[in-house]
């Protein structure tokens, strides 16, 4: 059941209702927006490539004629396109994971990092950066290029698994326990990160801080090929949990009464988020705020139904992250801002504005 053709509403603008009634329109707008933002991202940069040229380069690529256009082709296909795709995947993954977590934790402020995956990935990445040269390199020679992302992904997944096991007793996972254990682990990981930065030398410190601010600048086709099979199936799988998440808004007992296999929904949601966020963090570092702001905006615009919210969050997350990244790499060109700084400095005030715009506050 979609939002439903409710015209008797007394709270809420007419425009908001009409979007609630037409999820198709929401998706169409977001898809068009994503295409536009993608086009801008491909053409803007240190070397401007006109949109028409971008089209012909992409057309050539699809027909299989590469290597004919020289510099511009190289920039678009080898630099900007992988970066665009990375931004889309990471933005879509983080935003839809945020929506999933908020549904699961029954809290609109829940962050995809709550299940410990970001903290675990951060600790593993810091350990790889700081201790990798000293401990691992003597055993296996110079660290391979992929050691950092693989370590981060594994760290995130293992942490989430650990928290899940801590919170599960007798076949039932206590979401509250998981949340609190996640908070505890977050504090612990902060301390461990502090220790690692204390132990680091200057170069390691720079790597560490760059990684923890998040960036899409390391985008390569290899990275895309590595995270695509992790993030894309997760995003496609999410809407299958939508009915369960809608029912969970009433409470766990009520969801069970409505026939939702609550424990299976919890386990799947946590697994999907761990994979998606783990892959995102591994590829692009820690990028904050996308997971909270995007689902919240969509709920204000088009209502809280998860069948709309999960896929729409993926689209809007992709749009916002690609837009933010385009700004991050052009605003001070040829220098580049870490995107995490940009998403937080733009996201936080915008979020506040969204909250304050609504009179009477927001019920959590």
């Amino acid at each position, binding site marked *: *059941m979609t939002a439903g053709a409710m015209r008797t509403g007394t709270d809420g603008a007419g425009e908001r209702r009409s979007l609630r009634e037409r999820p198709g329109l929401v998706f169409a707008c977001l898809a068009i927006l994503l295409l536009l933002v993608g086009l801008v991202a491909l053409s803007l940069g240190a070397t401007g490539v006109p949109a028409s040229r971008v089209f012909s380069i992409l057309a050539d690529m699809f027909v299989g004629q590469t290597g004919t256009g020289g510099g511009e082709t190289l920039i678009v296909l080898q630099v900007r396109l992988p970066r665009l795709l990375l931004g889309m995947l990471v933005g879509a993954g983080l935003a839809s994971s945020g929506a999933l977590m908020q549904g699961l934790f029954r809290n609109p402020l829940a962050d995809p990092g709550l299940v410990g995956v970001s903290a675990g990935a951060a600790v593993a990445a810091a350990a790889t950066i700081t201790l990798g040269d000293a401990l691992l390199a003597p055993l296996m020679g110079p660290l391979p290029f992929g050691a950092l992302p693989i370590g981060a992904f594994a760290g995130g997944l293992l942490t989430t698994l650990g928290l899940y096991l801590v919170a599960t007793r007798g076949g039932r996972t206590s979401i509250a326990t998981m949340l609190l254990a996640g908070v505890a682990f977050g504090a612990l990981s902060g301390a461990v990160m502090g220790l690692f930065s204390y132990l680091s030398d200057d170069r390691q410190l720079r790597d560490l801080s760059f990684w923890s601010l998040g960036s899409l600048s390391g985008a390569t086709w290899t990275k895309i090929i590595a995270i695509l099979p992790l993030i894309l199936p997760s995003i496609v799988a999410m809407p299958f949990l939508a009915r369960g998440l809608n029912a969970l808004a009433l409470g766990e007992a009520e969801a069970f009464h409505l026939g939702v296999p609550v424990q299976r929904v919890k386990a799947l949601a946590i697994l999907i988020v761990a994979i998606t966020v783990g892959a995102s963090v591994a590829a692009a570092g820690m990028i904050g705020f996308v997971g909270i702001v995007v689902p919240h905006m969509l709920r204000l615009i088009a209502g809280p139904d998860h069948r709309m919210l999960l896929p729409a969050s993926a689209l809007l997350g992709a749009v916002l992250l690609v837009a933010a990244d385009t700004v991050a790499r052009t605003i001070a060109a040829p220098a580049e801002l870490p995107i995490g700084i940009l998403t937080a400095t733009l996201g936080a005030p915008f979020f506040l504005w969204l909250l304050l715009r609504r009179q009477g506050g927001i*019920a959590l």
Partner: protein
Amino acid sequence: MSVILEARDLSYTRSGRTLLDGVDLAVREGSLTVVLGPNGAGKSTLVRMLCGELAPTRGRVVLNGDTLASIPAWLLAHKRAVMPQASDLTFPFTAFEVAGLGVEGLGRGLSRADRHRLARTALEHADVAHLAGRNYQTLSGGERQRVQFARVLAQLAAGRTVETRQVLFLDEPIASLDLKHQLAVLAKAQDLAREGLTVVAVLHDLQLAAGIADEVVLLQNGRLVTHGKPHAVLTPACLTEVFGVALTGTGLPPHPWMIASP
């Protein structure tokens, strides 16, 4: 009439405390059974186990001949619906959407239009059709309770396409309702029972219970004290014993009538 729901030696122990102790109970199909007892008697625990939400530590519940534990959640949702004591909602769903949650994913051969119709009809039956477009989070406690009732009615209607022998559990359904809507909810429950639905309700108001119940189950300290027709169970002697309050029965027809003397 045949027995639809049966508790056999039902017990529940949590961290050393026995909340329910060896309850045997048979609920007849199409009856309206009211569970009564003082605070902490195990009324809610009993209902939570009868509806499958809580697994018994000993004994079992049999619904329609099947052990409850063997029925998968999705199928069980077609066989029974549960109205909670109070329900918060995390996200700003409208009342119509909340009623819609009762039919989402349930039933056989229902089109989207059918589901919309079921939700709308349920809102009308619960006297909240006028709130359909309102944000549930902005409704009053009583209005929320009635929207929840609509959701439960919608679930039963959708479930009926799969299973016609259904049970409705009401856990203190009228706690936050005004008198008019208390009577309306109970009257609806009575109507449903007359149509063949089995209703099990936890109530606090002895008077209302006496007025609507076909059968009364009296619990005390996790044990079943007695189970039978209202006039046989709701006697001053029995209630004084269970509730620890001096009661005088007036025996006014048509229902037992109790007056508490402080």
